[in-house]
């Protein structure tokens, strides 16, 4: 079965390492914070100027001056720091953030990502995504493997305006975990019950399958 949003987040959380500074995008990436493995400590960066983002506030803690990059009310953990947008993006562009997780419309086999604009239709803007993909040490993309019409989102070349070039290292979809290198998607893991054939069929770009592909393991 294809993974739920929560399961995709659970699988991404396995990429977290002790001591990581992590920026989580809007949507599924935000859910990753709920599944930080026990025994490791990560610090969440929110690009509006918060390092050490905590959970949503209680009614009593609610404060309009305390929000995350998704404009949701939020709290700061003990040991958090708050700073300006320029400082925030200095740490992002300067390569100080260890991992960024974000969603996408399309990714291609050269690690290009399109996530911000569908010409003539939806205009939202790139927000901080272009800075994050250009600056983070490691980039994981979460998305469904195919769109609702069954069209692959893992392409030979992105068709939509790009967010960044050659930057995506890993993709966690509802069907698979893939690594992007040497101009191809390398299949690392399958969602439980999903066959390599189905993944192959829903991957439009070059897919490399080496040996037996294990199923994802969830604790």
């Amino acid at each position, binding site marked *: 079965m294809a993974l739920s949003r929560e399961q995709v987040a659970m699988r991404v959380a396995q990429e977290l390492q002790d001591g990581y500074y992590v920026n989580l995008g809007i949507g599924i990436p935000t859910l990753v914070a709920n599944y930080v493995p026990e025994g490791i400590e990560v610090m969440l960066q929110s*690009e509006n100027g918060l390092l050490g983002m905590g959970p949503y506030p209680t009614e009593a803690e609610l404060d309009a001056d305390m929000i995350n990059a998704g404009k949701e009310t939020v709290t700061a953990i003990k040991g958090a720091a708050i700073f300006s*947008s*320029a400082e925030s993006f200095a740490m992002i562009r300067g390569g100080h953030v260890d991992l960024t997780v974000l969603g996408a419309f399309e990714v291609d086999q050269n690690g290009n990502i399109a996530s911000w604009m569908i010409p003539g239709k939806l205009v939202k*803007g790139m927000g901080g995504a272009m800075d994050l993909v250009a600056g983070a040490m490691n980039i994981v993309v979460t998305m469904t493997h195919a769109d609702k019409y069954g069209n692959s989102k893992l392409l030979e070349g992105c068709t939509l305006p790009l*967010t960044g070039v050659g930057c995506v290292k890993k993709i966690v979809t509802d069907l698979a975990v893939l690594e992007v290198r040497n101009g191809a998607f390398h299949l690392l893991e399958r969602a439980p019950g999903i066959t390599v054939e189905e993944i192959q069929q829903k991957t439009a770009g070059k897919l490399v399958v080496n040996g037996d592909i294990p199923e994802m393991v969830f604790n």
Partner: protein
Amino acid sequence: MAGFNKVVHSYEDAMAGLQDGMTVIAGGFGLCGIPEGLIAQIKKMATTDLTVVSNNCGVDGFGLGILLEDRQIKKMVASYVGENALFEKQLLSGELEVELTPQGTLAEKMRAGGAGIPAFFTATGYGTPVAEGKETREIDGRHYVLEPAITGDFAIVRAWKADRYGNLMFRHTSMNFNPMAATAGKITVAEVEEIVEPGELEPSQIHTPGIYVQRVIKGSFEKRIERRMVRQG
């Protein structure tokens, strides 16, 4: 008191000199940390053909969104406009010129503008539509885009505490773009929650030194929340 007393007592005085066709840089992220009263004053003045530089353009009916209602904005420089239906409509119909700018590039453009740096190279946006028509350069094997700085005729910011010298402190994440915006205006106006006596702000804790600020006005703020999220506690 003249000299360094930057406190004004009316919104008319706070925005005096704003004219059609000017560039206004506004602090704030979403609806957090926005100078609500100064935006309302611009609406009241009915100034048109404005270029507005701000991360977002408010929402329908609040924040900078109210300046769209009477088409006061000719051009918007922003990173994200997803929360604003009127904005999207004016953009798609071509009534509004928009320069979508990556959020970090936008912050750095303001910072550079205020610091006398005319342009800077950044990896952000290389190979994307943002880089089209801009100079690029390869430095140590990486590609960079040359991005020009931004300055404004006016900068409007929201701060927590100020003194009459224009020294500012911001509260929590309402800081966001406000410190950079404050440096980049020919006339920077700070709308603040509280004006304190000189000396009450610890000098080393001041976020924006008063040299950047020309006018200070005490405001009162609705502080509307865009996405109210709470947990059971």
